[in-house]
Structures are given as C-alpha cells and as structure tokens.
C-alpha cells in the first residue's frame, strides 16, 4: 500500500473546519464530564483551613506559633460545637515516667472504662471509636485468639472466664513510631506515645504495625454531640480529631500531665486499674512491680517492652 502523500481533501478548508469543530466538541464534552465527575467535591466543606494546611511540625513550633495554633483550634471547636474549649499544650514533667498496671484478678469486664474513655477523650460517637478493647478470656489461657471481643452477657463476670482490657501499651520500643513515614507519632520522655493529629497523613502503616490493635483511624468525619464535648483539651490529647487521621490512647494526657488519674482508672468500680510514676519508688505502680509475683507484659516476645503491666492477685 503506497503511503498517501497529503491529499487535497485533508487540507481543504471545509475538512479543517469540520475537524476543528469536532475537536472543540470533544474538548468541551471532556471538560464537562470532568466537572461532573468532580461534582461531589462541592460538599468538601471545611476539609482543611489554609492555616492548618501550612502548619509546621509540632516539634518545630515556637511558643508563639503554638499560641496561634491553640487559638485556631479553640476557634474551630467553638465554630463547630458552639462551646469555647480550653486547649493546652501540656509538656511531659521531669522525673516522671508513667506506667499502668491492671489487676486481672479484679477486673470484672463491665466495660465502664471503655465508655469513660470515649467520653473523656472526645472520641467519635458515630461511628464509635473506642481505645479500650475488653477480651473475655477462658481461664487458663493468655492466647488472645481465644478471647471474645463481642460478649454481650447481661451480667459480668461469668464463671470460668477472666477479663482482659487492652489499650495502647505505651511501648518502650514502639513499632508504630518506627514505621511512621512522617514522624507524626513519637514517644515523649514521660513514656507516652503521642500523635500530632495535624501532621498525620493517614497512611495507617502504624495501625498495621501495632501488635496490640491499639490504634484507630478516623474513617469519616468524627461525630460528637455538642453537649457531650469535653472542653478540657490538650493538643496531643483529646482535642477533636479530623477525618483521615490516626488516634489512640494517650494515658489521658490532658489529665495525667496535670496531676490527675486517667479517666479509665477513676471509673473502675473494682479498683483493678493502677497508674503512676515508675521513677518514684513510693508510687503504687512501683510497689506492684516490686512486690507482685506474677505480672505480664502482653506479647513480651515482640520486644516492644510495654509500659502496661497485667498482674494477678492470687
């Protein structure tokens, strides 16, 4: 087949104008289709303010920057919930390393800690995000796979079972911190692993890395009824989170760094939960770790070295 040299009709005006007309139609149709496909973005709303978008990394914020950031958060919370919160940037105290100890002999599996935690830490109610998962375990085993996550017994405890609440273990060697590609989560010197919710990119690698199922992701915009909002907030703690970021137990930073106990401890009806400073030899947790004969770090073989200890009384 001889290759055609440019034939007259191809370059003629009529053909050219027909061509450019078709081209115009195609371009117009394409743009319209693109616009239509992007239409859902109209509901995007307050995805991110420019202030939030350009905000620097937590550790690089000067005290002045931090003041502005806290003011912005207060403004945003007030705008959204109609309540003026008190947001603080609480720093770790010197000479303090927090440790949790949980008495498995006493725990009755009532899940009051789960709900106190949700209320204290402004977790989304719909879908409900919980930091604490209570496992109903048959006597004689520490194999979590034998645990029941969804028990709905009318009364607890049930004979033949013990109950094991699991939350962030505040590891000394946290796998979640190691894997975060943007340093959005790190361990503070009081032992608490925190998340900068304004820096997290939501890749969920930490969630895959955590051996304790302690991390939670905001799969959608968190929903908290305004009258349930806890206005006592901390930047690295319980301030409301945005869609698309990670969160987890932070030992109630807004309370514990101000000298109070975590909410889960205060609500526990049987006193199974103990919390304190391991660096203080006179603290309750120091006493427990010194004197109790059996205590367990969950999945010790992972080498994560949790700051969360389980023990039995008898």
């Amino acid at each position, binding site marked *: 087949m001889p290759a055609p040299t440019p034939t007259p009709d191809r370059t003629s005006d009529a053909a050219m104008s027909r061509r450019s007309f078709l081209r115009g139609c195609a371009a117009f149709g394409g743009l319209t289709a693109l616009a239509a496909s992007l239409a859902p973005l109209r509901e995007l709303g307050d995805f991110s303010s420019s202030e939030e978008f350009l905000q620097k990394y937590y550790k690089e914020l000067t005290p002045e920057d931090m003041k502005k950031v806290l003011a912005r958060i207060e403004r945003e919370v007030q705008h959204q919930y109609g309540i003026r919160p008190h947001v603080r940037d609480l720093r770790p105290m010197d000479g303090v390393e927090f440790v949790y100890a949980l008495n498995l002999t006493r725990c009755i599996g009532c899940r009051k800690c789960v709900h106190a935690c949700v209320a204290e830490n402004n977790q989304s109610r719909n879908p409900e995000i919980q930091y604490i998962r209570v496992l109903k375990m048959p006597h004689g085993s520490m194999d979590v796979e034998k*645990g029941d996550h969804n028990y709905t017994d009318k009364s607890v405890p049930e004979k033949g079972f013990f109950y094991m609440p699991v939350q962030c273990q505040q590891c000394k060697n946290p796998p979640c911190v190691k894997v975060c590609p943007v340093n959005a989560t790190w361990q503070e010197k009081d032992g608490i692993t925190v998340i900068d919710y304004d820096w997290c990119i939501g890749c969920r690698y930490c969630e895959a890395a955590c051996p304790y199922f302690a991390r939670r992701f905001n799969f959608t915009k968190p929903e908290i009824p305004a009258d349930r909002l806890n206005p006592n907030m901390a930047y690295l703690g319980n301030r409301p989170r945005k869609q698309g970021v990670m969160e987890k137990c932070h030992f109630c930073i807004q309370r514990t760094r101000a000298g109070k106990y975590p909410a889960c401890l205060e609500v526990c009806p049987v006193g199974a939960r103990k919390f304190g400073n391991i660096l203080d030899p006179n603290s309750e947790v120091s006493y427990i770790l010194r004197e109790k004969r059996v205590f367990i770090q969950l999945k010790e073989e992972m080498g994560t070295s949790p700051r969360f200890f389980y023990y039995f009384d008898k």
Partner: protein
Amino acid sequence: MITAARNYLVFLRRCARIAFVGDWRYYAWMGGLTVIVLLGVNAYAKQLVHGLVVTGMSDEVSWGVYIANFTFLVGVAAAAVMMVIPVYIYDNEELHDLVIFGELLAVAAIIMCLLFVTVDLGRPDRFWHLIPGVGQMNFPRSMLSWDVIVLNGYLLLNVHICGYLLYCRYQKRKPAKWFYIPFVFLAIVWAISIHTVTAFLYVGLGGRPFWNASIVGPRFLASAFTAGPALIILALQVIRRVTASGSATELRGGSDVGEKPGRPATLADLALLARELPEMANVTETDRQRALVGAAVIAVAPGDVLLRQGTKSTYAFFVLQGRVVVKKQEGDLARITRTARPGDQFGEVSALHGTAREATAIAEEPSVILRLPASALNVLLETREMHVVVHTRMTERLMITDRSLLILRGIVQVSMIINVFLLVCEVFKEFYSGTTHGASAKYLFFGLHGHHALVPWIWTAIGFNLIAMVILLLPVSRGLKYLNVACVLSIVGIWIEKGMGLVIPGFIPTPLGAIVDYVPSVNETLVCLGIWAFGLLCYTVFLRMAVPILQGRMTKANEGQPDIQGDEPAAALPAPAAH
C-alpha cells in the same frame, strides 16, 4: 543551546500532538478509558468528601485493594528489568528494540503505584509532610520513606532512559553511552530494590506473623518476574497488531526494481550522499573510486519494491532522494520496521551477512537510490566513521519477532516454577509447624471459625498458577495461543495471590484475635478501575509517541511537515483481523 532547547520543545510538542491523533479504534479505546478514569475520579471525589468509610476497610483490616494493587504493580514495574538484563548484560539482539516498551510499561506502572498509595491516604492534602527538607521524612527508620525514595527514583531513572533513547532516535543521533548506560545498570539494581523494599514494608512488622517471614521478599521477586514479562508478552502482541500497516498481501504487489540496471554511479553521486551522510566526508578519494565498482543509481516510483522479504541478493542501498519504507511480514500482517530518508541505508544486513532479506523495502515517494554491491559497501565500511554510523543504524528499527516473545516465555517459565516452589515452602512452614502464627494462613486457605471470605480467591489463584506452570512447561506454549493463555492465567493468579492473598490475610485475625472479613466496596473498586484505566491510558500514549519514532516515521528530518507520518497507514487500515 537555544537551538537545542527549541529542538527539544518541538519534539515534545510533536509527541503531545501525536497523542491526540489516531484512527477510530484509537479514539474508541482512549475514549472508553477516559470514561472509566472519570468514573474513578468521581468515586475518589466521594471518598475525599466522606472519608475512607466509603471503602470496605476497617480498623481491623486497615489496608485493602488499594495497597494490594500497589504491591502487584511495583512488581510489574520491577519486571521491566527482565527485558533490560538480557539486552544490556547478555547483548541479546532480539529484545534490543523492545527494551523501551518494557521501560515505558515500568513508567506507567509506577504512575499507577503512586496513585494507589495516594488514594489510600486519609489526608492526601498533607503529602508534603513527606518531602525531605520541607516536611519530615522518617528516613531511614520507616520502610515507607524508603519506598517513597526508591519508587520516585525508579520513575525518574526510567523516564530519563526512555526519554533520552527516544529523543536520540528522533534526532538520528547515536546515544552517548555515558549518558544512559550507567543509568541502565543503576536501574537494574534499583528495580530489584523497589520490590525488595516493598516486601520489607510487610516483612518488617513483627506483630503480623503472616508477613513477618523472610520468604516474602524472594516470593515478591519471583512472582513479579512471572507476571511482569507475561504482561509484556501480551502487550507486545497488542502493539504488533495495532501498529500493523495493513495485511501481508500488500507486500506482494509492486514491481521489483531492485535489480534493474540503472546508470553507473559517479563521484558526484557519492558527494550527494555525503551531503546527507556527513560521515562520508571521511572516506578518501581513492576509497570512493573503489566503491564505485559495480555501483549504480536507480530512479524508482512510489510503490516500487527494491527488495523483498525472503529473497536473496547481495545489494545494499542508500537513499539519495525521496523516501523508502521497510516493512516486515509478521504472520498475516505487515508492519513498518524502518523508514529510510536521504542518507539512510537499507538492505545492508543481508548484503553483509549473505542472508535472505528480512523485510520488504518499498518506495513511498519518487526516489533516487544508490545501489552498492556488498564489496563496495565493505569498502565504505573500511572508514571507521562509516562503520560506526552504518552499524548504529542497523539496530534502528522496530521488530517484534516471535523469537523475542519466546525469550520472554523462558523467563516466565523459570520464574513461575520458582514462584510455585516458594509458595509450597511457605505453605509447608505455616501448616506443618502448627503454631498459632499459622492462623492467617489457615484463614486464607481453609477459613477460620466460620469465616471463609478469601478461600475461593486463593484456590483460584493456585489453580491458575499451576495450570499456567504446566502449560509453560509443555512445548505447546511455544505457540502464541497457548502462551497467551498461560500469560493471562499467570497474571490473574499472581494478582490475586499477591493482593487478596498477601495483604488482606495479614490483618486477619487481628493481633487481638478478632476475625473481621474484608470485601472491597463498589466505590473502592471504581477508584481501582479508574487508576488502572489511567495507567493504560498513559501506556497507550507513551506507545503512540514511541512507535512512530522507533519506526523512523517521526523524526527530526520530517519536522514541520503538515501531517505526522506514521498515522496514515493506521487510518487507512482495513478492519483488523478478527481475534
């Protein structure tokens, strides 16, 4: 400098323009892909607004088909090296022309990978937090930061290599070895690294025993080197079919003029050639005189055939004026392998080697041709510069031979055996030891506590892989029909095995022993389809640019001419053979 920049811009503009030109099949294909892309964009816009809740993922299974596809496609990208290694390390001639198709596939695959990780992010607006210097990159501790580096690096390497080689071909310039060979070798190592690093993303997680196995890395490579070349085998056949200039019958027409007497060539003719071929200037007067022995000049009309595939003759030709196209018959189709313009040679391979003609050369315009007997060509080649330019141009062609597909078949064959072997190793370890760490594998292969979501998937994958392996081992797969079946089975099998079979069960049961099934949502699936369509769209556009350049249809020599040559044959193509 300014001219160089201008030339490059013209090149880019022509490449961009040709992407919008094609026959109705091209428009239908691109239009269809665009529609799917837009459906994906729409689905992603919804996800952006409502969050990842529109996917099937949960806190329990926190990665799904996005990351599964990402993992598979990193493998496809890495597999481009399986074309590069034979060519650059073992000097394989058959695959030489085709390396670029593999690398372009790698570029398209990496683009898809980057899109898949982006759509998986909860806060894509904060991607800049990853950029070193501006943001915070947790390097070297986080394997994800390694992945960001190696994937982007691999993208740049391949864009550089393809772009440079194509631009040189376009300019008819010999590529400077130092400017691409080091990158080729770097890309080989880099390709292994992208897949190893991606495997390490999983392997590094101590809390997930299913992933925390050292065999995952080798398995990734083996499955990538199976699925990647299999995909290339299929892609090359599609390229071969759609870039055909017409049916093979067109090569039978035309009158043979290659042997017609013509007039004896003179020094003036050689001087004319020297104008188009500067290397001729180095040929001495004496050598020119010697080269005239037996040389003739013939004038030919469009459609005249200068040499015919399969025949034997010892003449070599140079175009003095006009244009000659070299077409090769492959099966029942004919395809342009090279275009000769003033100063270009053709027919030199069989003239020098005394072999049968590999293709048919047809004049496209009224042309004046210098015909040399092999002895005269050898005289010209005594001059080093001529030797270099003639041998360089010898490889400037586009041939997709069955033999090259069979070389790739060999790679798929061996990789598939290794892949299945590694799978057996893993299955043995998981099940024979009987530890609680085997729970994920139990869930995957047989179901756990009444949950069976992945069981049909993995057995389909294993069935496909085994059937593909058997076909590949049998001689029937030397025929393209069975080879294609084996390739499709391998690709689908490995896609499942690596995606649904590796990413998902790693999450089930959770570290606290809960079992939550995962099923991708419709929205999530649409996003995936959109990204695949976009990747195919990119690959098609890359090929649309690369093929005419490799065929010599789009070169600097025809810059500024009204129509981009290389489109006409496709436009005039009779309906493609039904397949």
